Structures are given as C-alpha cells and as structure tokens.
C-alpha cells in the first residue's frame, strides 16, 4: 500500500488521475498538490494547496510520508498559467523544488514524470519515427517543449543522485479526448484551421484515458526508464481537418508567424513556435518499448482518439460528412448510377470496414 503525491492536481488530467488512483486498491492515500484548488472532483484524494515553486513541498512530502511522487505539474500553454514567465516558473523552478524535496526525502522510492514527445522537436531532418534514444536534430527553442527538455534534464540529474529511486519518464504524444483541454483541442475547435501551405504534418495522438492508464501502471508497478506513449498509426493534418469537418486555411510559411499572432492575440488558441513546427513537419513515435518492455498497448489508436474527440467536442461542423455523402449520392443519381457507399450499405461487406480503418 503506497502513499502517492500528485503535483498539478487541479487541472483536468491531474484531477482525473487523482480519482483513478483513489479507486485503486494498491494505493492507500492520494495527496494532490497545486497552486489553485481543483475545479473538478478529486474523489477521496486529499488536496494541499502548496506552490511547488517554494520549499513547502518538502514538508508536505515528509508529513505525508509519500513514497511515490507523480509529477504532472508541467503546464503546456501560457494561457493556462497567465503568462509565459509564470509558466516557465511553474515548469522549471517548480520541478527543481519538487526534485530537491524528493532528493532529501527518506520515504520517496519512485518518481513518475509526465513529459511530452515535443522534447523531440519537429523538423525536416528528423527520422520518420522517434525512438526514446533518437537525438533530436532540431532542439526545441521555446515554450513548453523547451521547458520539458529542461525538466527531463533535471529528472535525469535526480536519477543520478538518487539511484535507489525508480524514475519513470513518460513522453506522451499530443493528448486528445472528450474532455481534456490542450493546445490541439483548441486548435481543432477553430472554425478555420490555419495550416502551413505546402506542408502536411503527420500527427500521432494519445487518448486521455490511455494517458491516465499508463501513469497508473507506472505507479502500481515498477517500470524504470523513458517510454514513448502514443496510439498506433498517424493521421495527416489535412485528413484530421476533414474528419473534423473543418476547412483548412493554408498560410504561406513566411506569413505563419503573423497569422499565428492574430489568433493568439484574439485569444483563440496558442500558436507557439514549436506548435507551428509541429503543424509543419509533424512527428511520429516508435512505441515498441512501451508495448514490449512496459507491457502496455493503448486501447485507442490515433484515429479512434481523434474520432472520440470529434464526436464529443466538435458538434458544429462546417463541412459535415452527411452533406458530402448526400452530394455524392445526388450527383450519382443524376447520372443514373448507384454509389459505392450505397452498394456497401445494402450488402454490408467487411470491405467497408477495411476502407475506413485499413
């Protein structure tokens, strides 16, 4: 039976994870820490309002006798923190304080860090899929991605100084799902999707439920090391836009900064430099280590993740699928033909499944 401390418990993923752990029989007590009280229900988990940027966190760990620390306190967009400076403080100084507290603690025996695949950056010189050992050719230079690179650096340093503590770093692909708020969910909720003209990014996603389950498994069993976590398969950005029933707005790359700035100032969505590079070149992960060493296969693949996001979140589609199908059928009827879709509907062959998911 273990006592788990979760940092960054007040945002959606943190609260959900606290609830999930609270329900887990292997965990006796869950202590959530954050700067602001949680908006959502955290179940039987206890909440301690403490800023991980100051040394109070050491007292919390000591008084609770926490033996497992889950660090989810790295925030991804300045909009969430109220400015880039605060965001960097929370991410970098917060991690340093938390790790300092862990290093002093006599009880902590495991550290689980929620990191991101954006530490790999995105660029034209990168291989098609990143393994955990791939050296990024284009190191992220700003925002969340750079913070995450620094956070991982401190975590590695901690691992060297406390070799007795099991350290698990999970690099998650972009998270989407019915509830989570991320830069990507904000992006796909735009009525028009700005894309980079002449580029079509490969996107790999992970469903929020799979993210929570991976973290839970890292808590209840020991999996030292770094793991990529992502659903199988990729979607092209243009394809995702069409699945979402959204119209893409290709912007020539010299003007991307300008247009991104408009969207940012209008408060729609956060277009960081890293986000733009991701939307230009895309990124895919090799998850062999996750499935073979860690022993977990995400239940949602990339496409299912995206479809679950679209089904629950994007109700107002500008180009609904039904209208396109109706148009196709109208045109075919006018020409006196039956469409392939109708033929499939009338004799539900397994082929139609293959076409959708093949």
């Amino acid at each position: 039976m273990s006592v788990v401390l979760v940092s960054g418990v007040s945002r959606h993923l943190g609260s959900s994870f606290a609830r999930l752990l609270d329900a887990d029989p292997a965990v006796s007590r869950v202590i959530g820490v954050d700067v602001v009280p949680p908006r959502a229900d955290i179940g039987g988990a206890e909440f301690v309002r403490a800023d991980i940027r100051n040394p109070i966190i050491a007292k919390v760990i000591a008084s609770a006798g926490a033996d497992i620390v889950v660090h989810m306190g790295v925030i991804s967009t300045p909009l969430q923190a109220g400015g880039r400076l605060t965001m960097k403080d929370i991410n970098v100084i917060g991690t340093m304080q938390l790790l300092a507290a862990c290093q002093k603690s006599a009880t902590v025996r495991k550290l689980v860090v929620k990191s991101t695949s954006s530490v790999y950056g995105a660029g034209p010189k990168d291989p098609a899929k990143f393994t955990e050992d791939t050296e990024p050719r284009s190191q992220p230079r700003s925002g969340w991605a750079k913070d995450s690179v620094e956070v991982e650096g401190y975590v590695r340093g901690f691992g060297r100084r406390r070799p007795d503590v099991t350290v698990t770093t999970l690099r998650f692909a972009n998270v989407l799902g019915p509830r989570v708020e991320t830069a990507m969910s904000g992006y796909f909720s735009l009525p028009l999707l700005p894309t980079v003209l002449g580029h079509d990014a490969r996107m790999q996603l992970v469903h929020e439920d799979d993210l929570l389950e991976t973290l839970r498994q890292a808590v209840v069993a020991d999996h030292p090391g770094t793991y990529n976590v992502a659903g199988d398969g990729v979607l092209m950005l243009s394809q995702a836009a069409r699945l979402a029933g959204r119209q893409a707005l290709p912007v020539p790359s010299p003007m991307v900064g300008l247009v991104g700035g408009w969207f940012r100032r209008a408060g729609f969505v956060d277009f960081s430099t890293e986000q733009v590079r991701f939307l230009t070149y895309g990124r895919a992960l090799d998850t062999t280590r996750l499935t073979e060493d860690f022993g977990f296969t995400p239940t949602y693949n990339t496409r299912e993740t995206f479809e679950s996001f679209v089904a629950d979140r994007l109700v107002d589609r500008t180009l609904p699928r039904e209208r396109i199908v109706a148009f196709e059928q109208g045109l075919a009827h006018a020409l006196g033909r039956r469409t392939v879709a109708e033929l499939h509907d009338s004799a539900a062959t397994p082929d139609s499944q293959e076409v959708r998911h093949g």
Partner: protein
Amino acid sequence: MADARVIPLGDGDRNARLAASRAARKVGATGPAAPRPRKPRAKPAAEATGYAEPDQSPPPAHLPADHGDDGVGAGRDGAGGTGLVDWLDFLRRRLTGEYAVDDIGFDAELTDKVLLAALRPLYDHWFRVETRGLENIPDTGGALVVANHSGTIALDAAMTQLAVHDHHPAHRDLRMLGANLVFSTPFVGELARKAGHTLACNPDAERLLADEQVVGVWPEGFKGIGKMFADRYKLQRFGRGGFVAAALRSRAPIIPCAIVGAEETYPMIGNAKALARLLSLPYFPITPTFPWLGPLGLVPLPSRWVIEFGDPIPTDHYPAGAADDPMLVFNLTDQVRETIQQTLYRLLVQRRGVFV
C-alpha cells in the same frame, strides 16, 4: 567484364512482356485502389512501339457492370465497377478523411490514383520507358534498390517507382529515401511523404526494410542529379555507404539498377552557382531551354529510357555485425557502384539513339 550479353532493343519478347504487363495493369490488382479503367491505352501503345498489338485485350469487364447487390464484390476486386462511381467514392472519402496512411505518411491510394497517374503518360508515351529485370525484385520481403541518379530533377526516381508499381507482378511500392532538402521544401516534401518516401537516414532505411518494403536509394544524391551534361553516365561518389550498412543489418538483398535516358531529359550545360547560393539550392541548372524559354523550358526532352534491374547481391550470408566492418561496407559499396557503371556502359553501347 560481363561479355556483351546482347539484348536487342525492341524484340518480340519484349513486346509480349510489355503487352502482358499492360494487360495486367488494366485488370489491376492492388487492393482497394484497383479499378483503374483506362480504355484508350492499348492503341497508342501499339503505335508507339510500331508493332501490332497482339489480341490481348479481354472483354472490358468493367464497362457495363450492372450494379446489382451481387456486383458489390466485383466493384471492389478490380474486375467491375464503373470508373465514375469509383471516382465519386474516391473523392467522397478524400473529402471526409476516410482513408489511411502508414506511419511514414504513405498514402497508397492517392499515389496510385493521382500522383502516379499523372506520370503514366510521361512514362508510356514521352519517355517510352522499357523496364528489364523486374524479376530481380522479390515478390515479398525487403529489398534495397540502388540506382544511378541524373537529370536535374528526380524524374528518374519517379519513373522507377512507377515501373516497379505498375509492371512488377506483385505491384510493389518503391519506398525511396530522399535528402532533407526534399522534406523542407513546400509541396515537394508533402508529395514525397504521401508517395511513401522518407528521409535518407539509417533508422528509416532499416525501419522500412524490417517492414519488408522495397526501398529505393540514389546514393549519388545531388552530386549525381546536378552534374554537367559532359559528365553524363559517369557515376559520382556513392555517399558514405550507409545504404550498404542498412542492407547488411536488415539482411536484405541489394538490387543494382541502371537507368539510361534520364541524363538527356534536361541536359545541364551550366550551373548558376551564385543564384543557387541565393536560393540555398545545391545547384541552379541552365539547360538549352531553361531558363531561356520560361515555363516551356521545363518540358523534358523526349529521350527513350531503359531501366534495368540487375541480379540481386545477397547480404544474408555475412555474419552478424558485418555492418560495423567498414572495409566490408566499402567493398560492397564499390561492387554495387561498379555493377551499375558497367551496366550503364553496356546499355549505352546497345542504344540506337537518344530519342529513338
């Protein structure tokens, strides 16, 4: 070296093979993207080769295709379905995103229906490509095709992909490895990913070979494609032999491939180096027609092409760890390079003329 095994150009055997492969292509058998009705093709092909086409065209099963419920299977397996319905279906799935790409970004259906379709007239009627030795590419399993590079823009690579896709009995997709300039260039990079190509680096080469794909590599890179017309058919340095190491690690055979004809498409008689530096390009070609004739200068000269795939060089008999033996890697690289160079000389001797 290789006593001239004379293969006369345009013999009957070759025409039969061409006709057979055309017929095979007409019936088509590449999964969901198969139905590819192109009725008016047989005739111009016969004219182009100057031979009466043997009576090979089967009754066009795809034409009347009555769409009863039992026609469903036929609509999918390539024997039936009207072109119009298939195109509507294709367009609808494009607009609703109901298609699949692999992890590299390869969009098999788009490649077959749009990208390669745009190149087919060029292949059949402009360059009148003759492909030999396709049987050297295995029907299944990984293989590494290594070819000479020429012609200012990578038309030779595109034609090779089309040759392997359309004329190989197993309709294999050639997955090529390109320079990073390809992937940073707008449109070009996007199309390259969708056509199944990826960055020339060992992790990607080994990933594709492990996935039992046919991988194509042009080790001369920009040195080959951007060389002067005076240096035509002289192989440039073959990189660092990374492709050989990848083949050794994956135990995949290396298939040398010689392409004759591409050098004459855009004869590069000058290189505007200052302009190239300004545009951060590896070279800026000046040909007899480009840039003098503007867009018209982009039309390639109609040289007649031969693409010959040589005997596979097996790599599976080397011990594990052979890829880390630089001497072996250099020797194999030289062997592949020499084979391609000798094949080029042989094909050039046999060639009757550049354009005929």
